[in-house]
């Protein structure tokens, strides 16, 4: 592991805004975000954003996104706590790729089952579903209630020796180095085109996770960003979106992280209003 005097220290901030179209249509913000530890800088941090999307079977339960980020951040924290049992970075990488997706899905399924036990599907929800999508959709949901709502999920674990990124579905993970160069640390997924996405509500969702692992041999990144798809979809092109990474780094260095954090609600609301209209959530970890 890295000498503790040179180990990176991370401060995480974030913001989630209701989309312009959701405001017009009276819909809730279905995104969610969470990070650990909450509210202070740390040498280790886990954080996540989720988009509790409205699927064809959706009963519009905004808590799904919250359950997803809870599952991811808890699983990542527990994983980091257990690292002393792993002998090398390659063993950690293998464990992250093999264990984390299944563990996150397991926690998500347990949380959704508990939520459905506490708040069973109502006749009103089922009626709306049938009216919109037909009797077959109602039958499908009654057979497999977990399918009522899905969530995309992006998460990261930053430590002093390595970084782990996990992505399921649409949205973006960006890494910004000290020179402002922006890259995506997880591989793309050609299935995510148009409005189609993979999701935690899919069967064997763990197979659809994309995992990125970076051993910190050189300088750690200056910034790590997670955002739901409403943000990238608000820019005319991908270059304009990637510019967010370099611009935020410059703004943080010039004005400080607190000033940037305070401005995020205005910036994200403006992006949704003039762009996609979708909910937007952005969480960023800044190296202090």
């Amino acid at each position: 592991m890295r000498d503790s005097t040179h180990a990176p220290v991370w401060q995480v901030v974030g913001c989630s805004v209701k989309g312009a179209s959701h405001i017009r249509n009276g819909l809730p913000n279905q995104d969610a975000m969470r990070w650990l530890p909450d509210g202070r800088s740390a040498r280790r941090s886990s954080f996540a954003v989720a988009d509790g999307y409205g699927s064809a079977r959706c009963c519009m339960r905004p808590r799904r996104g919250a359950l997803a980020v809870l599952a991811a951040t808890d699983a990542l924290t527990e994983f980091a706590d257990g690292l002393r049992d792993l002998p090398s970075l390659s063993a950690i990488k293998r464990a992250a790729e093999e264990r984390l997706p299944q563990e996150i899905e397991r926690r998500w399924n347990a949380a959704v089952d508990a939520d459905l036990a506490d708040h069973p599907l109502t006749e009103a929800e089922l009626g709306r579903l049938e009216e919109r999508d037909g009797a077959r959709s109602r039958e499908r949901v009654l057979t497999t209630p977990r399918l009522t709502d899905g969530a995309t999920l992006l998460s990261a674990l930053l430590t002093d020796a390595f970084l782990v990124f996990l992505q399921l579905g649409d949205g973006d993970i960006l890494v910004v180095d000290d020179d402002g160069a922006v890259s995506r640390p997880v591989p793309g997924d050609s299935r995510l085109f148009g409005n189609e996405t993979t999701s935690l509500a899919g069967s064997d969702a763990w197979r659809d996770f994309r995992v990125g692992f970076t051993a910190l041999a050189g300088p750690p990144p200056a910034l790590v960003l997670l955002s739901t798809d409403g943000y990238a979809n608000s820019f005319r092109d991908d270059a304009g979106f990637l510019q967010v990474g370099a611009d935020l780094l410059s703004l943080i260095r010039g004005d400080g992280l607190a000033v940037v954090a305070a401005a995020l609600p205005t910036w994200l609301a403006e992006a949704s209003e003039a762009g996609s209209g979708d909910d937007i959530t952005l969480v960023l970890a800044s190296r202090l």
Partner: protein
Amino acid sequence: MAKRPGGELATRPLHFIWIADASGSMAGDKIHSLNFAIRDAIPHMQKVADENPNAQVLVRALAFSSGAQWTISQPTPIADFKWTDVKAGGVTDMGKALAMVAEQLHIPPMTERALPPVLVLISDGQPTDDFQTGLRALMDQAWGKKAVRIAIAIGDDADKDVLKEFIGNAEMEPLQANNPEALVNYIKWVSTAVLKSASSPASQTSADAGGANVPIPAPPDPNAGPAAPGDVW
């Protein structure tokens, strides 16, 4: 406050394409009704677009008979869109029309961040050219596969099998318009309910989709309205 991070913001384009049969069998009442129905639908499309400013609705039109040609070739903002009357004459080169649409759905000129396009195919007859090649060209495009594809059959002579192939969704049939009122109702439905669904589609998994790229609301009763005559086509 500091300058907003990132490049230029933009709403998402939604391409809406009318693909109209202008063969000789459409002459007379059918082509007159088609021209009237689409022109009549424009204000309704504009209203739907106004209600969702985060989708930029861009419309164009292609007519096919002996060959095919764009009657409105540029993707035109719905606020500026004016229908150009289609004149009937010739055969039914539907395959050529689909191949020409396929060329326009290529990336580029299309962008990956677009909303799923809406393609509305209206026909009263049977293809006289190689329909399968045209359909294959369309479905070879990522946006062709992801498009919302609606078909309206005018009269009993329309080839509903090829229209169903064009739709490519076992849960959705071609809409059968057997008189002018039904055609007006269907075109209005496509211009409003379908456009509204396509302009703010929720993310969905392939399992959710059930064959439709965006949830499609139920079509109207074809004979709804004050006058509901029997079949005339």
